[in-house]
């Protein structure tokens, strides 16, 4: 169970852990920056899931570019990070009914999902991947 102010990092690989997040600002609505992992631990083609408050976010390395997308299909809440990454067009396929989501915008590229999911800013700071949530 994730406590406020903490983010659980679920790697879709061998390492799973929980690290404390770093709060910036005072109000809850201000952006918060979460440390995800060292850049070397998320090579191209890799994904990991971050649980932040009641949100699950998939952080994805697609051909060297980093993206973060809500880990929830807008069609029936399927876990996107358990689906296949389409590296040629940086999209992720919902494993439940096959909707394809654009990692850059969160918009579905195919039905049956028709509503976009949230995307988040992700950046590299030093050798760490950081995620901005709000």
């Amino acid at each position: 169970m994730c406590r406020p102010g903490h983010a659980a990092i679920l790697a879709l690989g061998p390492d799973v852990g929980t690290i404390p997040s770093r709060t910036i600002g005072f109000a809850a609505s201000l952006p918060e920056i979460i440390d995800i992992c060292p850049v070397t631990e998320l090579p191209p083609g890799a994904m990991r899931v971050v649980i932040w408050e009641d949100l699950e976010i998939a952080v994805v390395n697609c051909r060297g570019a980093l993206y973060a997308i809500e880990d929830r299909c807008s069609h029936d809440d399927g876990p996107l990070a358990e689906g296949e990454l389409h590296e040629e067009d940086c999209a992720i396929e919902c494993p439940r009914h096959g909707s394809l989501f654009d990692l850059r915008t969160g918009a579905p590229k195919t039905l049956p999902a028709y509503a976009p999911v949230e995307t988040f800013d992700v950046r590299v700071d030093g050798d760490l991947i950081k995620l901005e949530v709000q």
Partner: protein
Amino acid sequence: MAATPETTTKILTPDEAALRTLGSDYTERYGFHDAENYLYKAPKGLNAEIVAKISEFKSEPQWMREFRLKALDYFLARPQPTWGSPMLADVDYDDIHYFVRASERSERSWDDVPEDVKKTFDRLGIPEAERKFLAGVGAQYESEVVYHQVNEALEKQGVIFTDMDTALREHEDLVREYFATIIPPNDNKLAALNSAVWSGGSFVYVPPGVHVEMPLQAYFRINTENMGQFERTIIIADEGSYVHYVEGCTAPTYSGDSLHSAVVELIAKPGARIRYTTVQNWSSNVFNLVTKRAVAETDATVEWVDCNLGSKLTMKYPSVYLMGERAHGEVLSIAFAGVGQHQDAGAKIVHAAPNTTSNIFAKSISKDGGRSSYRGLLEVAKGAHGSKSKVVCDALLLDDHSRSDTYPTIRIGENEVDVGHEATVSKVGDEQLFYLMAHGLSEEEAGKLIVNGFIEPIVKELPMEYAIEMNRLIELQMEGSIG
């Protein structure tokens, strides 16, 4: 013990005599089958080798071959659905021929179609219909389209109406842009199956502003026992255009089951209108498990007119996603379930944009122990304010041992909407029959009149030639059902 022929005869009125002959004529009109002079018939069962062979036969690009093989994995990984109908458990995927090639290529002249196949379509009246009232025709026999023709004037206006295999060869970019965007391969088990082994079907593109005034028609025919037909159809109506596509389907009556599992994707661009009419009259040994879905963009209209008369089990829920403001979706559905049949039909409409409108009118008739179900979804997404929808499903039961079920689902995510749902179930009552008989009709005629009146609001939406055929088919189904 041999039966003694009856020697007493009843004098029949001309109407009664005509009805007697109607009763046995599925076999005569549609249920016949030809000798199998095939170029290739895959062994029963499905594996990667057969899928790769289909792709190889068609000399497809690598991306399509990969698409098929991945879809096969999805199909194998997914369990057989357990909702819908208990009959679904009887589908034996290992007892199906997944690819049968009857002809070298799709011809543009009837004279070049193989003789047996030509005779079949002549008997079904296809060339005659083309001459009389169609803008184009496609005829699919087993796995592939054997004949395709489109009105020259339409071709000059840029209308593409061809079989899907040819479209993939001649318009690859256009096909790739839209293929499986409306129904992805992992949408459901049957869509995955179709994606792996699809063959034939139609590809239609109507350029901006072009109105195709006469319908385009495709006719699907299964000839072999234990055959699987998996056509794939895409219709793209570009901005402000209009097209009406009609499909019909029949098969011989066999003791072994066949499987028909199509995928149909419709894209109506802003201001366009697509009407898609189906008169499904498969023989009673065909599982008809079809995925049909449409997208209507701003100010566009998509209408499905769906008539299900034949098959052992039909599970089909044509859907419309109203993605642009003021888009309109409509599903008109008739299902007729006779002895041993389950028609699980319905509709889905998703209002994903403001001020969108939709209607679903579903009529079902059950007789002789047949079962018909209406299964529908109406969804209004958050933000789709000002949307209006009306769902009406009516069921008519002709006897005490038939069954009708209604499974409507409505999800509303927006406050300012206008949604109505009405459902009725009725039985042909003795009073109605008595009233009509008191006006000089026979009991059978009275029953037919009641049924025809029941479905009339939908039949009148069909082009005249199909409305006549539909009424004839209903009469055929109705024989001997009253009294």
